[in-house]
């Protein structure tokens, strides 16, 4: 297994290198740069001053030099400074990562807490109103965009309850109550989408497993329905579900961009979107590489989970 893990990590190197080339290239292909954006905010800056600023920031160097410098910064864990705000990127990330991490974790917990029981219920009550309701909810979750659902939730919360999550982010350690008030609603919005796909997958895999011989044997032994479903069927049905959940992580991070904007949370999503809009190359590149690294690692963890769920699986 260790060999497998090491091999997977080594395979991640070309993946990350390719990602770095793509994001570096794409940022350079886009017209305008951070200084143009700063100029837009400013009203006007002379060409002479812009040229001086570009030189100071190394933006006048050939692309391959810029790429190699940035690559070295990434390898040495020193991503440099934001061109737009002049803030160290590490500082900006230190503030943004916990926000997105908390949002994604809560969304995942809420999503799974809804998806798995409803998916199982939908399977064991196939073609009943409960099943139809679950499936309609699942289809809604897949078809309703996050920005629409988020806007709807915050608008109606304000109209009906005169309440919205408190604005002005507070960390969990500073104010746990305020923090949870701020995160539960956005996490529910984000988790709803996640739960939809997971719910559908849980339903179909549980249905499939329920028809397996060993489940029939379990029923024949006279085991209680709860034990048959949750102990014998569900665990084996979870492998494709885990795969789906692993694949959803990218969607979750993409959804976080929108949800963080609607609920005014200063996470990675907002940081990245702002950096893209303002052509803040180092920030975008670092964020993309970070997300790529997280996704590679999480996918590895998902693969390793298979063995825990199904002891027959062996890694070579």
């Amino acid at each position, binding site marked *: 297994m260790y060999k497998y893990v090491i091999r997977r990590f080594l395979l991640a190197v070309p993946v990350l290198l390719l990602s770095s080339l793509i994001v570096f290239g794409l940022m350079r292909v*886009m*017209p*305008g*740069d*951070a200084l*143009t*954006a*700063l*100029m*837009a*905010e*400013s*009203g*006007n*800056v*002379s060409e002479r*001053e812009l040229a001086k600023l570009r030189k100071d920031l190394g933006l006048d160097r050939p692309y391959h030099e810029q790429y190699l410098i940035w690559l070295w910064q990434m390898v040495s864990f020193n991503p440099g400074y934001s061109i*737009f*705000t*002049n*803030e160290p990127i590490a500082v900006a990330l230190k*503030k943004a990562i916990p926000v997105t991490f908390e949002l994604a974790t809560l969304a995942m917990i809420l999503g799974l807490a809804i998806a798995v029981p409803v998916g199982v219920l939908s399977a*064991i*009550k*196939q*073609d*009943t*109103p409960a099943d*139809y309701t679950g499936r*309609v909810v699942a289809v809604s979750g897949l078809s309703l965009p996050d920005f629409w659902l988020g*806007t709807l939730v*915050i*608008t109606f*919360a*304000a*109209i009906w309850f*005169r*309440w*919205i999550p*408190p*604005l*002005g*982010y507070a960390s969990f350690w500073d104010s746990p109550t305020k923090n949870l008030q701020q995160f539960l609603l956005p996490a529910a919005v984000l988790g709803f989408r996640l739960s939809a796909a997971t719910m559908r997958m849980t339903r179909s895999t549980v249905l499939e497993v*329920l*028809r397996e011989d060993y489940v*029939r044997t379990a*029923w*024949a032994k006279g085991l209680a*329905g709860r034990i048959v479903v949750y102990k014998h069927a569900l665990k084996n049905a979870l492998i494709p579900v885990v795969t789906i959940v692993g694949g959803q992580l990218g969607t979750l991070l993409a959804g976080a961009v929108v949800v963080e*904007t*609607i*609920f*005014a949370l*200063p996470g990675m999503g*907002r*940081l990245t979107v*702002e950096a893209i*809009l*303002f*052509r803040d190359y180092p920030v975008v590149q670092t964020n993309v590489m970070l997300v790529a690294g997280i996704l590679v690692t999480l996918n590895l963890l998902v693969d390793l989970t298979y063995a825990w769920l199904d002891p027959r699986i062996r890694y070579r």
Partner: protein
Amino acid sequence: MPIDDRDLTSTQSQVTRRTFLGRVGLGGAVATTVLTGARQRRAQADSTTSYPDWIPPSPKPPKRGGILTRASEWDPPVLDPRLTNSVGLFQFACLVYNRLVRYPFSDEAANTTDLTLKGDLAESWQGSPDFRIWTFKLRQGVKWQNIAPLNGRELVAADIKYCYEAYAKEGVQSFTFREIEGIETPDKYTVRIHLKTPNVMFPQILAEVVAVIFPREVLEEDGDLKKRMIGTGPFTLKEHTRKVKAVLARNPDYWDKGRPYIDEYHILSTPDAATRTAAFRSGQSDIRWVASLADAEAIRKTNPTAVLEEYKNVQTVFGLALAQDKPPFNDVRVRRAISMAIDRQKQVDTIYEGHGILGWGVPYIYYQDKMPTAAQLGPYWQYKPAEAKKLLAEAGHPNGFETTLFYYEYFPQMSSQVQLVQLDLQKNLNINIKINKLDYTTFFGRYAEGKWDGMAWGFKTGYAVSLDEQAYQYMHSKSPKNYFRFSDPVVDELVTKLRQTPDKAEQRVITKKVVDREHDQVLRMWMPYDNGILIWQPPLRNIGALAMRRNDGYGASTFARLWLDK
């Protein structure tokens, strides 16, 4: 009991999937009809709604204390006022810093268009007979905020000299401050500014919100002003976390004794418009600006005690910019034809629900008392498609032509405006426009570079109040802010003359000539613009919005006089 298909079939109710989905679909259709009907009724009701355009200051004695909160769409790119004119910064920088002179606050203004200069750090000011030397007498006893390294030391004339020289040296205001030839400080409280050319409107330039006075110590210690904000203003910057909030606290040593009235002002970074509205509805934000009457009415319905003020714009900041240094737009007949082929009133009626202005560039308050009528804007601002077609044919384009238009969507209505213009020009002149919607950075880079072809949806910067900025700085052919790329010797001469004309009445006459020339030559093709609605919570006092100084943006310095009646 084993579970399989047969068992489930035997236990299910009589509701089949088809009937279930059918019922859901029917319910959805009914709900949609009801909601749509409600929306239509509301829109019809809105067209007759009107709100006051001026809320006078409260006659009651002000109360001290309380926290003002505002959900804001803007974040400052940097804290250094030399490096940006962004509203994100000046929404609070104008409360931490002072200027030498300023425009009236809400409790001083006679009306929304009152632009009588008031002393801020200066007590009095006077120009030399040739208006090349301006002398400012500083207020005595003004102290910098009691924060290291200033520690409450007194503000003196040398501070002003240092600050203005720093602005001229580098940054976004260098063009403005390079007009200064030299600065003298004959004593601690006197600043004498020598200009390279006469300018009767120089004090107005110093009253612009971006001309704030910052301390030399911070710039010298840090090398920039990006980390600390220490001023002489009514509030200190207690906390600033990018994309979260800025917290301003009352400056207890403020030179204007007894002011400000509120203890703290919290600006909460809220990029989403629906969330800002929700924040107002839920009481988390005290102020909300909306462009649409329907939106204002919707808020009034959920918050019936909210106070609404109609904000009547005195100018447009967006319009059609043409590459008029190249064919076909260098032909005035083409520009006139295009202008006459655009139905501006239709834009006002449809896109702005009848609540907008037709569009002109120089604020009308600088040349007449009342908002211009369509007729006053001149013949080329009227919708005359037949004449437009004839004129375009005379210019050698009887069959129209193809061109491009690029823009950035500053607000949602803008895309509709662009499409209506495209439709009008296609229908009336057979001009086919290929629209290119760009992101902010791409748009600005291309627009400001000034080398584009075809058309752009152009703009002028939002903070400007002074006539000098509106005329000379935007319209002189040599100015870097001449974004509309026109070069007109008559305009150059008029805007230069305006700088040398001290008499207000004469200024108005010259300004009118500038405007008439602009409209006659169609140098900038201004488009309709909304009149917004400012909404605030009932306890707020002295918050009336002033022309060109919306108090949720560049006009926030008026919060030095705001108080909460709780």
